[in-house]
């Protein structure tokens, strides 16, 4: 099952082959105490999109950083068009024609697109005077070449995430690379924007070879020509995308077979625990919803549809303009997170690194932060109680740590997310809002998070599950609300789940919808 394609096997035995624009052999990278990469072979052809997949910590980022010259490999050789090269510095990688579009944006927000694209590559006359006109012309040429179109004169800070990404892509394209590495390019994009990116990638690949790193298997199957799976720093195999299915790839990624990714438990649905009536806040309007005990209610929508704003409003982070929140049968004013937490409503925020965790604090301190009363003896904190509280959460959620005293910034994404969840579940909640709780988390950790959700609803908790992943929503939810432009536009019961229909309500533009009236299916 893990055998290489015949073709690859033959090639691997030969000497450097010019058929590949990039060939990496036996790449090994050791950091103090960790072997991040272990003799990884990899080949990239011109005109292909080669996906690199693996759980968090599998070595994808390390591999791409070696190619981009962030650090050199401990062992191994890299060939470009059959010629052996050394890449010791990012500038060297650029010189060799390797460009990388990073996951984080590296733009100057108050510069416009042209200024950002030409940053440190400025076209000048008399060596010092900027030629904005020439630069703009060049950018327009580049855009036409790959079929892109957006405003060039606005500060990029005012552009949406997908436009910002296009700026990043253009910046790389300007250097005329032969190889472009995309590190999680869709993580900040909506489904629609991702589709546009894929179109662009398909055009780009006529000229270059593309290495595509992503967590989202759906996308990988949609866009890639070949898939290489890494696990624990080792290459597990390379397959033509047409020759494998998602389940095979998942199994290669996680070693253990995941038979059923979504442990949906059948739980009796109780009375309503959380209700919103006619909520207005900022761009949110006319929002009505309810969540029952033991129910997982999905909230689907594109980025910008108001999902997070709704969660933050209910949680008391935003001031409600009008409307009513009914929690556990009584009307409540969501004044502040503190009030809501005391009532038993918890929010697992969208961004674990900035909203969920204190990165410089250790695991135990993070786990107790929302419930310090529990780990106090009278006026004073009790280290003993804190340790016990943390140990419980670590055991319960299988958080992999070297010790309770480990600083959370040193944990992997999945384990960090489990700390965020553990932080909220130290006490029994009545309702829980999970905002993109499985974002950037590997498949194994995802399944563990689903399991935790299943256990919570069994205990009678009502969950609002915000996600951009339709597969997990349809897999885990009892009902799904669809949000679009600040309001709920549709509601689906589990029997009616259809990914196409849900997506349609999420992307339909508003004028269209008003004509037909918001549908309740």
């Amino acid at each position, binding site marked *: 099952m893990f055998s290489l394609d015949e073709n690859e096997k033959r090639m691997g035995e030969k000497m450097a082959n010019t058929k590949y624009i990039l060939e990496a052999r036996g790449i090994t990278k050791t950091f103090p105490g960790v072997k991040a990469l272990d003799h990884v072979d990899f080949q990239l052809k011109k005109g292909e999109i080669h996906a690199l997949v693996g759980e968090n910590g599998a070595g994808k980022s390390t591999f791409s950083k070696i190619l981009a010259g962030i650090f050199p490999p401990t062992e191994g050789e890299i060939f470009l068009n059959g010629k052996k090269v050394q890449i010791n510095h990012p500038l060297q990688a650029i010189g060799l024609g390797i460009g990388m579009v990073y996951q984080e944006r590296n733009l100057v927000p108050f510069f416009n697109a042209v200024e950002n694209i030409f940053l440190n590559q400025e076209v000048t006359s008399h060596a010092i005077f900027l030629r904005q006109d020439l630069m703009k012309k060049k950018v327009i040429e580049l855009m036409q070449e790959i079929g892109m179109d957006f405003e060039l004169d606005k500060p990029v800070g005012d552009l949406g995430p997908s436009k910002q990404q296009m700026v990043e892509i253009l910046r790389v394209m300007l250097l005329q690379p032969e190889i472009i590495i995309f590190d999680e390019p869709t993580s900040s994009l909506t489904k629609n924007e991702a589709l546009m990116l894929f179109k662009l990638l398909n055009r780009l690949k006529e000229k270059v070879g593309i290495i595509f790193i992503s967590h989202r298997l759906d996308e990988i199957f949609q866009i890639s020509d070949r898939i290489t799976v890494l696990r624990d720093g080792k290459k597990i195999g390379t397959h033509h995308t047409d020759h494998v299915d998602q389940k095979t790839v998942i199994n290669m990624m996680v070693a253990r077979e995941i038979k059923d990714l979504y442990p949906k438990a059948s739980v009796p649905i109780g009375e309503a625990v959380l209700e919103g009536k006619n909520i207005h806040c900022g761009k949110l309007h006319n929002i009505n919803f309810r969540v029952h005990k033991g129910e997982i209610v999905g909230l689907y929508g594109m980025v910008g549809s108001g999902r997070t704003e709704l969660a933050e409003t209910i949680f008391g*982070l935003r001031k409600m303009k009008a409307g009513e929140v009914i929690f556990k049968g009584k009307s409540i004013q969501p004044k*502040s*997170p*503190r009030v*809501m*937490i*005391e009532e038993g409503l918890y*929010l697992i*925020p969208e961004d674990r690194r*900035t*909203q*969920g*965790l*204190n*990165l*410089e*604090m250790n695991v135990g*301190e993070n786990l107790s*932060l*929302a419930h*310090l*009363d529990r*780990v*106090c003896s009278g*006026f*004073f*904190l009790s280290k003993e109680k804190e340790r016990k509280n943390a140990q419980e959460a670590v055991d319960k959620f299988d958080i992999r740590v070297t010790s309770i005293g480990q600083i959370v910034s040193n944990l992997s994404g999945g384990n960090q997310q489990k700390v965020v969840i553990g*932080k909220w579940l130290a006490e029994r909640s009545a309702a829980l809002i999970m905002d993109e709780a499985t974002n950037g988390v590997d498949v194994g950790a995802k399944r563990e998070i689903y399991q935790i959700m299943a256990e919570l609803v069994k205990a009678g908790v009502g969950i609002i599950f915000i996600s951009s992943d339709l597969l997990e929503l349809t897999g885990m939810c009892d009902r799904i609300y669809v949000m679009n432009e600040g309001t709920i536009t549709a509601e689906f019961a589990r029997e009616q789940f259809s990914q196409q229909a849900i997506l349609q309500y999420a992307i339909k533009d508003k004028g269209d919808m008003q004509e037909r009236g918001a549908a309740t299916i």
Partner: protein
Amino acid sequence: MNKNKRFRMEGFFSKYGILVGLLLLIIFFSLKAPRFLSVTNAISLLRQISILSLLSTGLTFCMILNEFDLSIGEMCGLSGVLVTSLLLAGYSQIAAVLLVLFIGVIFGLLNGLIVTKVRISSFIVTLAMSTIILGFNYFITRGKPIYGQFPAGFIALGRGDLLSIPVPVIIALVFLTLGIIFTKKTKYGRYMYAIGGNIIAARYSGIATDRYRILGLVLSQFCAAMGGIVLASRLGSGQPTAGSGYLMNCFATVFLGTAIFGERIPNLLGTFVGVVIMGVLNNGLTMIAVPYYYEYIIQGAVLIGAVALTRIQAKS
């Protein structure tokens, strides 16, 4: 093996380098000025640093929260002239001291409310407030020192001894000890560190972030007011400009403190070590008769050096 050893040495220096530096300073001054290493000088040194310690303790609360308080120096000056003026105006000692402390709290509240409710950075707010406080100071004093006969109880605050330990030292140590317990042992201290580390995560955790930020700014003004009272008592007069010089040294001590023990975040014990270092420097330099203007140069260099040290540690 060898590499391992070197690594440990580096770890040792980044953790205890400052303590080693303090030790070297003490050795240096003892060699240059034999009188430096005497009990009398040690006690007078402690007496000298007690006011700096009070102010630095307050500033540390703020900096734990990742806030600044640039108005502590002027608050120290204002409270000195206020307490002396109130005493001369016939207020009882207790009333005068409590009233001045209360005024410190009011200014802290004002700083805190503007920072949290109007959402202006504490750097700007307290910078502006320091000028406002100086204005009040000159309004009371017209720039002239306040002299007079002060009651013995008040004078004891700065000059008295208790079991041959100077009273100001006792006051400073009480503030320091209570502060350490508060920041390290109670949930409120934990909240303050959480806010300083990541204010958004703290808010999402249900911590009343504004309340603690106000508390930090109040505590720093309260400590500064206390420092001013002790200072006035020590000087036996209300000196309008006596507090201004403390601000820079306070920052130096807090940054020295963050570099110590490898904590990397402001902490009161570290701050106190920083205070001792500044005290040893000033006392020692005076003893070996280095001209006073060098002291300023050295103090500034120490602040930059301390911050540089924290950056170097953050990298490793």
